[in-house]
């Protein structure tokens, strides 16, 4: 979108740019009143957005299904209202019904996913040998699957990493470090692109470069 033309839009572009500079003044220099003002302005803006969206969410997620006669939706309303007993010392225990309900779902659903995607699928792909692959395919197969076993051996707690058992755990630690290094290096690209995008925005607002 090219350089804004109407005054309100130009003002907006400048406000966005100034707030960005105030936030970066924290990083490029140190915490200061300008940063603190930008911090509180941004947090206030996110509160406003959160409140407006929460009201809309309550209307669509809770009230609307209820209106359609689905009385079972009374339950989230009751459980939700039970949250508000927290500030009152005598009735605070009531809020634990809701907390227990949420924790139950959280673990219930996550364990299902963990068992299927994180354990069985990973081990299945670790055992599946390459079909008629080249030497490189076989090397990769052994590297990934044995590497996986070595790193898992490093994560054992009730066995002392000594004697013959020291070697798989040590190799596992090296392969772990390799994975961390690759992951770190790979993320630099996307994050630097985000930062260069912000620098471009600032240069455009302050008319140092054209905004086609």
């Amino acid at each position, binding site marked *: 979108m*090219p350089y804004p033309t109407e005054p309100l839009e130009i003002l907006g572009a400048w406000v966005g740019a100034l707030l960005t500079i105030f936030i*970066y003044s924290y*990083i*490029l*220099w140190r915490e200061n009143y300008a940063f603190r003002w930008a911090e509180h302005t941004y947090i206030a803006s996110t509160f406003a957005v959160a409140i407006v969206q929460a009201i809309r969410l309550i209307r669509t997620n809770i009230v609307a299904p209820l209106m359609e006669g689905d009385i079972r939706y009374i339950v989230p309303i009751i459980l939700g209202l039970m949250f508000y007993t927290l500030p009152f010392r005598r009735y605070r225990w009531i809020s634990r019904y809701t907390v227990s309900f949420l924790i139950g779902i959280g673990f219930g659903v996550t364990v299902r996913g963990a068992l299927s995607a994180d354990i069985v699928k990973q081990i299945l792909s670790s055992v599946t040998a390459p079909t008629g692959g080249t030497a490189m395919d076989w090397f990769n197969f052994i590297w990934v699957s044995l590497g996986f076993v070595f790193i898992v051996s490093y994560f054992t707690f009730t066995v002392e990493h000594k004697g013959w058992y020291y070697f798989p755990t040590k190799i596992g630690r090296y392969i772990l470090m390799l994975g961390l290094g690759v992951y770190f290096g790979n993320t*630099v*690209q996307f994050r*630097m*692109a985000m*930062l*260069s*995008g912000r*620098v*471009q925005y600032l*240069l455009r607002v302050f008319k*140092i*470069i054209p905004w*086609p």
Partner: protein
Amino acid sequence: MTEAEKSIWIKMAEIDRRIIYWALFLLLAVPFIHPLMLPVSISETTKSLYDFIEGLGPDDIVVIGIQSGVSAWPECLPGLVAVTKHLVSRGVKIIVWGFYTDVDMTMNAIKARVPQLKWPDEEVGPGDYKYGEDWVYVGLIAGGEPSVAALADDLHAVIKADYFGTPIDQIPLLSKVKGAKDIALVITSDTGDYGWYYVRQWNSRYGTPIAEVGIAMIYSEFIPYYRAGQVVGLLKGCRGGAEYETLIKSPGEGIQRMDALNVSHLLTIFFIIIGNIGYFATRKYRR
């Protein structure tokens, strides 16, 4: 090691982070102000598209199909602009259309970066592209693979008028084109499946060469078509755009983004090396 020497090494090992942040912040601004044109290795598929267009002239007509949206601009726009600049420099006739809803915005973005393209009401100087004769903008076309096929069979059956509503027979460039046979090259920019529609409906049936200027993800899926010769050129997202800009020696947003990428990575690696040198030089004192 004298006191002064030791302090240099220690300084290298413990640089105040704000020096790193300032260096990164300023260096990231440089490519936008003055492109550094850091060397970009040219991949084979980009060179192949460049050579193909080098072989085209003023009596060839090329179609640019825009099927990538505004959100894909960072990856597709540099390539589209660079290819358009190359076509304009060779006087090749251009027809632009798109099956994507915000095709008009992409058209305006390309036009803002290729000043030779003129709208009907703009006056035309030497070397400029006169609307209707040198280039035409048809705008949004609806439909999926069937309408891509219909365009290849008989352009006039699908397109009744251009973006401004002037009927097709009053536009000299469009009246010369019956269908895929009269088109020298189709350049399609995709985030989705339209690229394959052009390959299946235009290339397999009429032999019209296709070139894909899409997002990096589409690149790997088009490699087999390139190997088979159906696709004469492939630009891999923003990097492909930077390579093409290097070939036509006109730096644009592709090179700016690649410069920013190179600068930020090289700076990070530079500080890592400095840190290690300082660390090893002063390791004696640490133990």
